[in-house]
């Protein structure tokens, strides 16, 4: 089966950014794994592709670090599913990750477009 356009346009996630995106997604409330992946895809206008194979290990990693908390609940269409929720520690982590992320973006931006970076600073 040939890959369609949207597939080609999707971007694989950078190492470490997945954690940030998960935390960011959970900011609005509890969500299950599938929901998180859909939210990221939709939120990035179908550009960011979340590999299921890395989503779940990431979720469990975050759960183990106690940044998110898991709970089995019934979903909207009456299925039992594992819902994740941000913990206070996770909220703190998200804040610091956000700062770090904006720094990285800034730095990369400066590198990619030096003249504009110089002009701005």
């Amino acid at each position, binding site marked *: 089966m040939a890959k369609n356009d949207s597939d080609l346009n999707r971007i694989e996630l950078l190492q470490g950014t997945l954690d940030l995106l998960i935390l960011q997604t959970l900011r609005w409330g509890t969500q299950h794994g599938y929901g998180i992946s859909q939210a990221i895809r939709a939120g990035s206008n179908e550009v960011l592709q979340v590999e299921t*194979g890395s989503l779940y290990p990431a979720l469990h990693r975050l759960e183990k670090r106690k940044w998110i908390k898991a709970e089995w609940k019934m979903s909207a269409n009456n299925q039992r599913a594992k819902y994740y929720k941000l913990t206070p520690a996770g909220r703190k982590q998200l804040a610091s990750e956000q700062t770090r992320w904006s720094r990285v973006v800034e730095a990369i931006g400066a590198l990619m477009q030096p003249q504009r970076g110089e002009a701005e600073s």
Partner: protein
Amino acid sequence: MRWYFWRKRNDEITEEIEVHLRMAADELVARGQSAQDARHAAERELGNVMAVKEAVRDVWVWRALQEILQDLRFASRVLTKSPGFSVAAITLIALGIGGNAAIYSFVNAAMYKPVPGVHALNLISLGVMRDGHQDDPGNSYANYADYVAQTKTLRPMLARGWDRFTVTLPKASYGVWGTLVTTNYFETLGVEMAKGRHFTEAEGRLDVSGLVAIISHNFWQDAFQGAADIVGRKIILNGHPATIVGVAPEGFHGPQVAERNDIFVPLLSYAHLNGRDREIGEHLLSGSIGVELIAQLAPEATLSQARAEFETISQRSRTAYPEANKGMSVLLVPYSALGPGINSVHLFLKIILVVAILTLIVVCANVANLMLSRAAFRQREIAVRKSLGAPRGRIFRMLMAEGLVISFTALIAAWIFARWASHGLQRLVTEDNGRALALDFSADWHVAAYALALAVFATLAFTTAPAIRAWRQDPLPWLKAGELGVLAGRSRLSTMLVVTQLALCVVLITGAGLAYRSQYLINNLEFHYEVDHLALLTVGTAGSATTPVQHAALLERLRERLRAVPGILAVSYSRIPPLWGSVKIGSVYRLGSPEPVRVDGNYVGPDFLQSLGVVPLHGRDILASDRAGTKRVAVVNQNLAQVFWPRSSAIGQSLRLNDGMIEVVGVVPNAAFTSLQEAKQRNVLLLAERQSPAEPGETTMHVRYAGSLDRIAPSIRAAIRETDARVPVFDLRGMRALIRNQTGPVLMIATLLTVFAGGALILAAIGLYAVIAFNMSRRTRDFGIRIALGASNRQIVENVLKEGLAVTAIGLAAGFALNIAGARAMGSLLYGVTATDAPTYLGAFLLLSVVSLVACYLPARRAARIDPMKALREE
């Protein structure tokens, strides 16, 4: 517990992934795909499901595993950096666990392994309870038949009874022990024949025409030189022709350790041949053939079901035969090579197991102490770790990891040591005839599991104290103060450990002391007879004599014939062998007194005192002239003479027995005639066999000889065979061997206890030394100041000694208190000493005092030599 969490987590991961797939598929279906396509697409998108699950699982496993590995690696590094401590700790634990494993492999072999040859599983021994107490396991054959008819849970069930057999071959007669068995005997026990076959059911019927027999491997080798055509050979068994149909496997002499059966015959047909048919149906034990029962649990039956069933069966049999089975019930216990129920062997095994565990506790206390003193020096390290943010749990784990590394290194060393030690043990334990005990001592998984459990226990025992300290420790003071100032508090715990060690030492040493003292007392017992150059052998007259008169005549012929053998100095006989107890005589009365006196009696042949080597105090020996028709005579011991005639000579006085008057012709010293125990307290009465002969049966010949037993033994056997070839000879051995047989267990306990007590004593001394030395080093400054202020050497030494001796005193007091409880258990195994033997206690007290004095004196002397200038400058 932990495993449960793992399972739960795995299930959750599987479900979570499944939910994801379903949701993805549902959405695709909503977009118009078919359910099947949607599912495929969702799976494709997910990739390799197994790999994903694995990756998720790894998140959880990896970290924990990594941390544990890190802890273990760190622990090994810490331990290799202080090799002295590590080697000491590992050696101590290895010896502790190894010694225990060796002892356990022995206990395991004796208590839980079947004898060689028995392969059946789930065997149950049927014991007998009477009025709620465990009784002799003998039951009646009639009850056995009832049980077999009624039980559904125990099948097959075998019955067996014992008898002596005279096996007559063309060239000679052999006296052997044999078993009368039900024909399912070998099948029930799962014994494979070395040659030939099992009994058939038909051979076990009452009216079977010919007797058949199965012989032991040993007997096959000894009597038939291992002849290949053994099956089908004819022999004469107690006068009845019989055919050999099989040979039991090597080492099998019956299902229990102590059995020495060389021949097995079907019970019913043998009883029939001997005219004992009537006894088969008799429920009363005294009138029936006594049997012991072993059965196998039926498939899918449990022991508790069987017990419940036998409650009912016992009840029924009590009602049906109220006289015979009064108050009787059946006790079902798993088969053990030691036989059903509690006996002295069980007690003995328990004692050594407890001793071994006590020693391990001492070892652990010592290692805990070593760890504690190290932990004291590591308190700063731990304080630094804590202040840098290491969680308490992590530090706890770090210390536990060190313990684990020590224990498990020790476990490997212990295993090697145990294998070596259990060989040594096996040599220590021999049967009465010098044969090694037929038990499999090799360490199996039971032993391995036991050793592993001990290692875990040891780890916990000696790491808990330092770990708890680390847990509670407040980091601040250790960061601020210098090391020497803040070690207080540590000494109380280690002092307690030393007290424990000393107390256990007292128990072990007094135990060893008691065992040795009984050994000593036995060795130095005034036998009043010559133990050496005395041979004992038992002969059976049942094959050639039928009346008491013939029996007595045959004994005299044997005695006369033996006396003519060159090298034999004197010959006599007695109805019961020396030290084997006494004949039931009933009561003895003084003339004119109705008051009965209890006596140990025996019927003996002419020259009895001469052959035993006892010199009468007054009067004479039993003589050949004391025969039927002459005045009945007796020899009494000093005790009995004292009881009846305290003020006059006993010679010529008369005694009344239930069956007539007897004249006392001799008085002998209070020698050990009937038993080693309480030899000096017994009243002994020796009567002339020829004046009241017994029914034909067994009699023990006493032969006093010159030279060696090995040289004279063939002549003895030959002389008996020449007199009457139908007379079998049992158990030809020296008096010394007979005594050893009785005292063997005491010697073994003494040896084992000594090994353990010695080890524990050394450990306790080291422990005490360590505590005192450590406390002293803490007080270096204190002593320096005292010396500077003019304290004399003596004052300093006294000061340190006082501290050490206080600890010793508490330990000893606790130990002697423990002893009063513990030593009672040993009581039944001791000879001539009570469990509260004063000399032993005094000896133990002195030994421990001296050892602890030395252990305290060394650091005390060091304290006295402190250079005050140096001590004050320190810190």
